[in-house]
């Protein structure tokens, strides 16, 4: 291959790829969370179940400020229709597409076309699509939209540096979302009676496993009488579940290593250290201890470490070069008329 030259990668494009992948992963996971939340709904407690979604995304303030009130319909609209909510599916997809627009010189035509058509679908979601059994179908379509993107990307995006930055964004976001998925359990209400409580808990854990696409694999590998510990273990530490936090962190380490080895990017050093610390955090402490001292607090710490890892990548490759520009896409209001 000595005939080929390494064209390098613009820092801006590395950042764009990283964020495009993150936003799309967020879209898929948001659809998963919504789908799971629906199965947490129990008669009389709809509002609590749906407001849990607001809490795990730390959106309480934003939700109220945008004029919504705590009821199920409002929460659904907040995440599926409200473009003004930066965490909503339409807003995340808009951000993904804006990044994709800057990346078109690097992307395959097939990637752009699918994203473009998917974007159009999401802009056309109506309040009726959120009602009754339509909601679950909608979530499925959204998940499939991202999955189609992922598949096309896998099959058509050239595997140079850009691919690694894309994958870094995707796995950081996925690890983060898996911890949020687990956190749903923290906010969920349980009945008082012992047997009722056991059944309700089982239902909830199953729903989370389904949300994280791990239900069947978990069943195959777990003990018949599984405990909460087993589920947490599976979602955080399973080495083979594609959405477990540990698998994500291992993939991150591998991509960072590729960037260093094959593309000579020695600036990955800090990110590699942080990824290692994160991996240790995930595997070190006994789960019993974590559950006893507070799963929610522990998940918070994991999320903070993920943010720090993203920051290390950003400082090394994106923002260092343009300290003045934080977001991937600057709003350029200046225009010019061309002939």
């Amino acid at each position, binding site marked *: 291959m000595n005939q080929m030259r390494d064209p*390098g990668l613009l820092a*801006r494009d590395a950042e764009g790829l990283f964020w495009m992948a993150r936003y799309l992963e967020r879209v898929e996971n948001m659809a998963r969370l919504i789908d799971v939340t629906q199965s947490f709904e129990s008669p009389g407690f709809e509002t609590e179940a749906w407001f849990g979604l607001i809490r795990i995304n730390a959106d309480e303030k934003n939700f109220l400020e945008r004029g919504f009130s705590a009821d199920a319909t409002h929460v659904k609209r907040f995440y599926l229709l409200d473009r003004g909510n930066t965490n909503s599916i339409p807003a995340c997809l808009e951000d993904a597409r804006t990044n994709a*627009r800057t990346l078109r010189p690097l992307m395959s035509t097939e990637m*752009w*076309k699918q994203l473009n058509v998917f974007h159009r679908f999401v*802009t056309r979601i109506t309040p009726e699509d959120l009602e009754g059994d339509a909601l679950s179908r909608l979530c499925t379509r959204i998940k499939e939209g991202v999955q189609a993107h992922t598949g096309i990307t896998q099959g058509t995006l050239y595997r140079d540096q850009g691919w690694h930055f894309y994958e870094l964004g995707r796995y950081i976001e996925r690890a983060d979302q898996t911890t949020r998925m687990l956190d749903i359990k923290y906010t969920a209400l349980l009945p008082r009676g012992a047997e009722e409580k056991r059944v309700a808990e089982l239902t909830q854990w199953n729903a989370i496993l389904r949300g994280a696409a791990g239900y069947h694999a978990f069943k195959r590998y777990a003990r018949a009488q599984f405990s909460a510990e087993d589920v947490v273990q599976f979602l955080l530490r399973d080495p083979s579940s594609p959405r477990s936090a540990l698998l994500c962190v291992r993939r991150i380490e591998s991509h960072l290593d590729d960037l260093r080895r094959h593309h000579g990017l020695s600036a990955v050093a800090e990110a590699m250290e942080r990824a290692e610390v994160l991996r240790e955090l995930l595997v070190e402490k006994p789960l019993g201890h974590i559950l006893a001292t507070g799963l929610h607090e522990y998940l918070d710490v994991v999320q903070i470490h993920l943010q720090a890892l993203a920051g290390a990548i950003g400082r090394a490759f994106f923002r260092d070069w343009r300290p003045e520009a934080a977001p991937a896409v600057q709003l350029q209001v200046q225009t010019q008329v061309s*002939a």
Partner: protein
Amino acid sequence: MNDIFQHLWPEYDPGRFFCELTTPRPDAGPVPQWLAERLQGIGLEALRARACAAETDLIDLGVTFTVYSDATAIDRILPFDCIPRVLTAPEWDLLERACIQRVKALNLFLGDIYGKGHVVKDGIIPADLVYGNANYRPEMKDFPVPHGTYVHVCGIDIIRDEKGDFRVLEDNARTPSGVSYVIENRHLMLRTFPDLMAGIKLKPVDDYGRRLRAAMAEVAPGGHADPQVVLLSPGIYNAAYFEHVFLAREMGVPLVVGADLLVDNERVFMRTTSGLKPVHTIYRRLNDDFLDPEVFRPDSMLGVPGLIGAWKAGNVAIANAVGTGVADDKAVYAYMPRIIEYYLAETPLIQNVETHICREAEGLNYTLDNLDKLVTKPVGESGGYGITIGPRASKAELEAVRATILANPENWISQPMIGLSVGPTLAEEGIGPRHLDLRPFIVTGKESWVLPGGLSRVAMKRGSLIVNSSQGGGSKDTWVLAEPFGQGGKA
């Protein structure tokens, strides 16, 4: 129109205009007839369905220009008409030579006015028209450019009059756009209408990216075996952003925005993940004004501080060169035939449209006396803005134009109303005649090369003469026949 077309399309009537399909041209061979027969064979219904599918395809693929509203980006396509415009081999030969001649003259003119200024001293063109021109850039004075090439990419707007003669309407020597549509239109035709094209040999249009990149490499500062070329775009909010993406991909070079570049010690670098990488040629799609806030508009966020300094130090090439706008000015245009004769001692292979210059008393008086017969144009505008078509204007409109011209005569030219040629176009009434023009693209490094064909822009509104995309114009695939069909017979 001959009998075959009358039989196939009894309703089709180009009137007094030259029709790019049905007006008899012996050197077109059987192609126009084949086309008409094949279109008839497909049928109007199927034609509309395919045209509709083709347009959806363009939107999905993002072959679009973008309009921004508060919430989202709306992608619009340049309306595509599926009935191609056919140029014969001898017609293309003339167009190609005329374009090369014109670009040669434009480059010599620019080299002269930014050098010794013979053309002014010899009285060919008034001094204030050159040196007082808003697009004249004193920064360029006495700064020679490689191979004398200022206009690396040129788009020349050419029309055909009632008699069938080509005429140059306008030169675009700054950052002409539209070439991506030429190539995308061909791809679309190949996908959607393979049966229309079967057995017809056409000159290919795929070579543009390679030629452009080669020209960019030729003008790079010396000593680089494989110079780093980049395309500088204003970014995703520019209406022509798709074209920038298209060209960057076709050339295989990075698309950069101003913030990706920086100048250090009079050298230009781009910011990559592995640090700063030198840049040697910038194909910019940014107007002069925005290029360097240290030299031009200080508020420009789109440009690169220090870029002009790096250029003047000879460390980077910028294409098109700064200051080419003085050559494609509508007032300078009027002098182009004399400019061609002055530098090349040749008569223009394709003539200008007769032009009256309102800065000259004679031109002004003639214009004011004949406002109702003339097309009046402001000299500084592009995109079809500010044009008044005398015969179609109301009395009140004409009086308003008169006042505007009188207030600032040097800002205006006028031309006779040209009966632009028409092409059969899929329209609401069926297949109807619509006016069109042609913008060939000329790429120049050491030598000039013309992309076969060019952008045929068509006014989609019945009777309209305005083909600009900003005014509702569309485009057609432009076929250049590769076979020189002889007088009345086969090749």
